[in-house]
């Protein structure tokens, strides 16, 4: 969707404010939101659905709330949409409906093992043979899906070159919407800065972005 999260290329947000000796979490609630989100990821819904739940925030709220408030809003949204909690339960902290978790809560050792092992998003290469090879000229397709996508507006319709074939990965545009993983090749695509931003960009500068095959067409 053409949402407020798709920020690349805007220049209206002022200076980048940095915080010296920034703590990992600024308050106990951030720490809990981080951990609750990670611990329920894949149980409540997919990472792609979680990202899309952030993207669906009201744009004014998105811009005026902090990062972990985005996570909190998305987690609450998905829990509510899947009927796993009620608005009353979230308001009161008191449970009225039976236990609904599809699996028992992970013990600490199991969660630490997942952190160390990771949750790979690539899939066997035989799922789909890559159409493009390094050096191929491509155009990022001019698509404006109403759902989740990882094709930012600033590359749509622009001409680039395949720099690298990364392998076969879960397709976020379907996986965010219960449409399955539908794995397909992902490429590193190189765009000249002037192709994206016009003559004011430095001549030799470039931008690399990772794009799924369905985002691309032959140039």
């Amino acid at each position, binding site marked *: 969707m053409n949402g407020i999260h798709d920020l*690349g290329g805007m220049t209206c947000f002022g200076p980048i404010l940095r915080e010296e000796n920034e703590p990992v979490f600024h308050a106990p609630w951030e720490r809990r939101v981080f951990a609750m989100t990670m611990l329920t990821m894949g149980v409540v819904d997919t990472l792609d659905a979680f990202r899309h739940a952030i993207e669906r925030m009201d744009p004014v709220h998105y811009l005026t709330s902090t990062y972990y408030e985005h996570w909190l809003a998305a987690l609450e949204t998905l829990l509510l949409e899947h009927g796993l909690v009620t608005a009353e339960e979230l308001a009161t902290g008191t449970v009225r409906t039976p236990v609904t978790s599809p699996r028992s809560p992970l013990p600490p050792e199991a969660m630490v093992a997942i952190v160390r092992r990771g949750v790979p998003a690539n899939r066997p290469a035989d799922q789909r043979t890559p159409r493009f090879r390094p050096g191929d000229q491509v155009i990022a397709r001019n698509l404006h899906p109403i759902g989740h996508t990882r094709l930012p507006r600033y590359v749509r319709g622009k001409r680039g070159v395949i720099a690298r074939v990364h392998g076969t990965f879960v397709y976020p545009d379907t996986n965010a919407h219960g449409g399955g993983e539908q794995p397909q090749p992902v490429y590193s695509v190189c765009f000249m800065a002037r192709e994206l931003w016009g003559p004011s960009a430095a001549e030799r500068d470039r931008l690399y*972005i990772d794009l799924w095959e369905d985002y691309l067409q032959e140039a």
Partner: protein
Amino acid sequence: MNSEHGHGHHRAGPDPRTESHLTPEQTQALEARVQALEAVLVAKGFVSPATLDALASLYEHDIGPMNGAKVVARAWVDPAYKQRLLTDATAAIAELGFGGLQGEHMVVVENTPTVHNVVVCTLCSCYPWPVLGLPPTWYKSAAYRSRVVIDPRGVLREFGLELPESVEVRVWDSSAELRYMVLPERPAGTEGMSEAELAALVTRDAMIGVAKVCVKSDRA
């Protein structure tokens, strides 16, 4: 609200550019909301408080830019390791015992006298957690995510890094599940240093690509 940045308008909510500057009332409201959510998730069997603590604690103590700094220092002293790192970063980083969530598919890009790399995620805030930990607020800010792709040299200048025209700037927008780390240039005057001494010089910002590594480092 901090108004010394010359924008002249007031925001009704917290300023997302300065995460720690929530008002006490805003923090209190969020604490209550999060406590309620946790109570519900615990009661329904989704999470246990001990696991929540163990998970957050990992990112507070064990997983952070000190890991990435060790990778960089190894690459500086061991050319064969550096080659492996640039060819298959995930495997090379695993050699030092690092990997896992948000670092399952790593790419390391090398800064040289003629190429400077800088990393962003314009759509959310993807970041290589196993080597750099959780991202700083500025990396997640609208200001950084929006502007570093269109005006990387201006952004780098704000970080105190002025690059000559002759240097090619490469911006990496981590829009898929690949995660990027910059291998900074080894600074001059470090020839006699041990690997551990070198690692102590490497900053988080240098591994994102918004700074260079200096011999006398004064910033995290």
